[in-house]
Every structure is written in structure tokens, then in C-alpha cells.
């Protein structure tokens, strides 16, 4: 386990290197002079020269990269061209709503998909199973934003139970906070619920037919315990591998959901910055989200190793 952990930790380095190269190059993909694009067509040549110098655009590319990386390593992601605020400040200022949304979503996913999969597996000889398989396929075929629009229509307009926009920080109290988040978090979770439940169902059905399940039955263990203890604990291991992808889906989804529900998170910050061509902020947010994703994948892999004694004791 120790050597596995070390190896896994070290593998983060090349990944983050590639990630930072990609993020760095983003600005240089823009057609034409970035300074031009940032300041607009009718900017004065002095202003452009000033910005070029500020962004170091006159240096060779690799020098620019190393300068940028050096900055990033010290926690400096540059300043917003639009608001002149440090990018890190903007990100952390907007991170609260995003993390709230994601945690609540993840909670929805776990609380719904696990019992759902167990129910489906224990009733596998009924019509419920093919119904569920098709429903989970339908789930991954629905655009999140469209589903959000429909739910807003139903729960915000026709039956105005939930607020359809806005965000209350946790500091304002738990009630208002969760009340504003329930609908967006549920929309965000819905697609992933289908994916996780399907994965867990498939793994459990696989495990149901394994020899060790037969051994448990031959011992006289009751079917409920066979399913909940033997089958479930084995099915959990392959299911953890898709948890990383789930978080990726949530990170991508927050951009859409935050825009739709006007939640001031980093997703909305990103979209606003794209419209403002505020490249330092775009770079900062994208790098930040990628770093979170890499970290989540690291945790998931270590969790996987921890759950599987064949890796843990190796």
C-alpha cells in the first residue's frame, strides 16, 4: 500500500505539468495578439504595449511559460484584466457556492443511487430491472440545462415550491442556504445518479454469480445478508472507480447549473470571464478546476486501493 501510495502521488507531477502547459497555451491559441483581444479593437498602441509588457508577451514562449509557472507555484495566478483583483482572490471568493452545490449533489447521488441499486438487484427478476436500465440510459441522454429548465418550470413556476435563482451563503443560516441549493443540486445529481446506480447494479449482478456468493449461500447465510454483506462490499470496489468521473461531471455541470440558477460560483465566474475575455481569470479557474479533479482522482484511487485488500496488502 505504501509503495502504491507513493507511486500514485508521484504520478500527479507529470499530469499537473501537462495540465499547466495546456492551460498556459490557452491564451496563445487565440487568433491574433492577446493584448489586442483583451483591450479591444480600438485600444491605443501605448495601452497595448503596456499590457504586452505586463503579460510578458514579448518574451519567447518557453520563458513566458517558466515565468508563469514560477508565479503559479507561489500561489499567484495573476490579476483580472476586468476587475484588477487577484485571480486567486476571485476564485476563493466564488468557491463557497460551488463547493456547497457539489457536496450537496454528491450527497444526493450517494443517498439515492446506493439504495436504488440494491433495490434493483434484490428485485432483479421483476420488470423493474429492464425499466431501470433504460431509465439510466435516458438519464445520460438528457441535457442537464434542459432538465434544469423543465424543473424550474415545474417547481419554480407551476408549483412555486423552490426559489429558481440566487444563493444564500451558509453564514445566513442553514435553512435558507439549503433551500436555495436543493433544486440546482438535485438537477446536477440526477444524471450522475443514473450512472452510479447502473455501475453498482452491474457490479452487484456480477458479484451475485461469483463462487464466494455461492459459498455464503451454502453456509446458510440469509439472502439479505448475502446481498448486503458479500455482494455489496465486493461491488463497491469497481464502483469507486467511476466516482472520479462523477466529480468531473459535477465540475462540468456546475458551470451550466450556476449560470442557469445565477449562483455566484466559479462556474459563473468562468462564463462571465469568457464573455469579458478576461484570460488570466479563465486560465486561473480552469487550472483550479483541473487541480481539484486531479486531487479527487488521487483520493479515489487511494480509496480503491484501501477498499481492496488485494492491493492494500501488497
Amino acid at each position: 500500500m505504501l509503495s502504491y501510495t507513493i507511486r500514485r502521488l508521484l504520478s500527479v507531477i507529470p499530469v499537473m505539468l501537462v495540465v499547466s502547459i495546456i492551460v498556459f497555451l490557452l491564451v496563445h491559441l487565440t487568433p491574433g495578439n492577446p493584448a489586442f483581444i483583451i483591450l479591444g479593437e480600438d485600444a491605443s498602441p501605448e495601452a497595448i504595449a503596456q499590457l504586452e509588457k505586463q503579460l510578458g508577451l514579448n518574451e519567447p514562449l518557453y520563458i513566458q511559460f517558466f515565468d508563469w509557472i514560477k508565479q503559479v507555484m507561489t500561489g499567484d495566478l495573476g490579476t483580472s484584466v476586468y476587475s484588477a483583483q487577484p485571480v486567486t482572490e476571485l476564485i476563493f471568493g466564488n468557491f463557497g457556492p460551488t463547493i456547497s452545490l457539489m457536496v450537496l449533489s454528491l450527497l444526493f447521488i450517494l443517498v439515492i443511487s446506493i439504495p436504488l441499486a440494491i433495490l434493483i438487484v434484490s428485485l432483479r427478476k421483476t420488470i423493474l430491472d429492464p425499466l431501470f436500465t433504460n431509465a439510466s440510459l435516458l438519464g445520460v441522454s438528457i441535457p442537464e440545462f434542459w432538465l434544469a429548465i423543465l424543473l424550474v418550470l415545474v417547481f419554480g413556476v407551476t408549483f412555486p415550491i423552490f426559489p429558481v435563482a440566487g444563493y444564500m451563503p451558509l453564514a445566513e443560516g442553514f435553512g435558507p442556504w439549503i433551500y436555495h441549493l436543493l433544486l440546482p443540486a438535485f438537477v446536477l445529481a440526477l444524471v450522475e445518479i443514473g450512472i452510479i446506480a447502473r455501475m453498482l447494479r452491474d457490479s452487484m449482478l456480477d458479484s451475485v454469480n461469483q463462487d464466494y456468493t455461492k459459498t455464503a449461500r451454502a453456509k446458510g447465510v440469509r439472502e439479505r445478508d448475502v446481498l448486503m454483506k458479500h455482494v455489496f462490499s465486493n461491488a463497491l470496489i469497481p464502483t469507486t472507480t467511476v466516482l472520479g468521473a462523477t466529480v468531473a461531471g459535477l465540475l462540468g455541470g456546475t458551470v451550466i447549473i450556476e449560470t442557469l440558477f445565477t449562483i455566484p460560483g466559479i462556474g459563473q465566474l468562468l462564463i462571465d470571464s469568457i464573455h469579458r475575455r478576461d484570460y488570466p481569470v479563465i486560465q486561473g479557474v480552469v487550472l483550479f478546476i483541473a487541480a481539484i479533479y486531479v486531487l479527487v482522482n488521487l483520493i479515489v484511487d487511494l480509496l480503491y486501493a484501501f477498499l481492496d485488500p488485494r492491493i492494500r496488502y501488497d
Partner: protein
Amino acid sequence: MMSKKRNIIALTIFLLVALATITANLWLPVSPAAIDANQRLLAPSGTHWFGTDDFGRDIFARVIVAARVSLAVGVIVAVVATVIGTLLGLVSGYFRKTDFILMRIVDGFLAFPALLLALALVAALGGSITNIVIALTIAFFPVMARVVRSAVLQIKNAQYIEAARTTGTNNVVIIFRYILPNVLSPIIVQSTFIFAKAILAEAALSFLGVGVNPSTPTWGNMLQESQIYITIAPWFSIFPGIAIVITVLSLNILGDGLRDAFDPHSVKKKRKRKPKQTAPAA
């Protein structure tokens, strides 16, 4: 069996959507671009099956025509991402020396949620159809590379490939003649899923206002436009969304069906459960 019927229905629906949009000019009774200020936001009726939008244009005609961009983006992204991903996967899986470098690069791309990477790239490149195709291709090829690489690794040491190698067959010939045909099934399955995901992603980008030029009818653009009319003209939002769901669902069903049909693992497992399935007596 039931699942077989399901696959045929899915394929039929998908082909119908494709056919309808390709031949749209021949049979659409109204132009999707015909503006009529007196006919704004009309509910669905006999003349306007899906109602009209905020410019009085026929939503049904627009939904049909919008499929062109969505399907075209989906097809091109699926094909290009498949070709690039497959080549990378083949090389990476077959040549040990390049494997480490290539896979670290692929891992780097995989470290971004796909939609976010596409969003950032479109933001940098600008929102034309070509740039969306480029951005989505970059977002989706790494998964393909991973899938192909692991498929190659599984069969690389098979006896017929060892045999080809020991007889001095050229590596390129081995890769394309012996390995590629044997990893085709996961490639086909994966490309179907990329097709589906690309349609969803294009719609999402357009919806976020960073996608295809808003004047071009695409499903995402229509949903973006319709958003503010959701309370007074819900049909404006509902029909383009249904079009996306139907198209993407049929692709996902096809991908799922292909996976089941190709998967030797599941077949073997089924065999194991019926122990009497031996060859008939000679």
C-alpha cells in the same frame, strides 16, 4: 430478444432524424427562417406543430434544420477523435517506449472535465463551428486513446501476434493487419458514445452562449433563446430539448447494444451458466 428489438428501434429513429434533416429543404412546408411578427410565440397547432418562436418562426422547421449542425458536429467529432485516439492508443499500446510519454500527455488532457476543456478551448479559439469541432475533438480523443491502448495491451501478447513478430513482420503491418481488426469493437462502441456526448456538449456550449453563432439554428441556440420565454411559451423550450434527447438516446442505446453484442466476456459468462452447451455429438 427484447434488447435486439430495442436496438433496431433506436437505429431506425436515428436514421429517420438524419434523413429528415438532410432532405428538409425538399419537404418542409415553411421556411425555418421565415419571420412573421404577427405570429410570435404561438402555441402548437395544426399549422405550427411545435408552435412558433419569438420571431414568429416555425419551431418544427427549425428543430428539423437544427439537427444538421448538431449531427454534423457529432459525426465529425466522433470520426476525428476516433482516428486520433485510435492511432495514439495503437502506438502507445504497442511500443513500450512511447507509452509513458504519450499516456502522460493523455492523462493531462483527461485531468480536465471534458465540457470544461471544450469551453476553455472555444473561449480561446472563438465560437465557430470549426472551432467547436476542434475543441470537442480535443476534449474527447483522450478517452478513445485510453480505451484503444488497454484493448491493445490485452491482445498484444496473443500467440498469432507473437508469431507474426517472430517471423519478422513489419510493426506497421502487425499493428494494422493483426491488432487493429481485433480492437475494432471497443473502438466502434466508444465512437458511438463520443457521437452522443458531442451532440450534448455542442448544445451545452451553444446554450452557454459560447457556441455556434446565435443566428444559426442549433438545438442549443434554440434553448438559449427560449430560456426567457419559459413561462409564457414552454413549447419553445420543450421541443428542441426532446429532439436532443431522442437523438442522443438512440445513439446511447445503439452504443449499449453494440457493447453487449461485442463483449466476449458477457458471452463467455452466459456460456458458463449453461454447462450443457457443448458441441453436438460427432
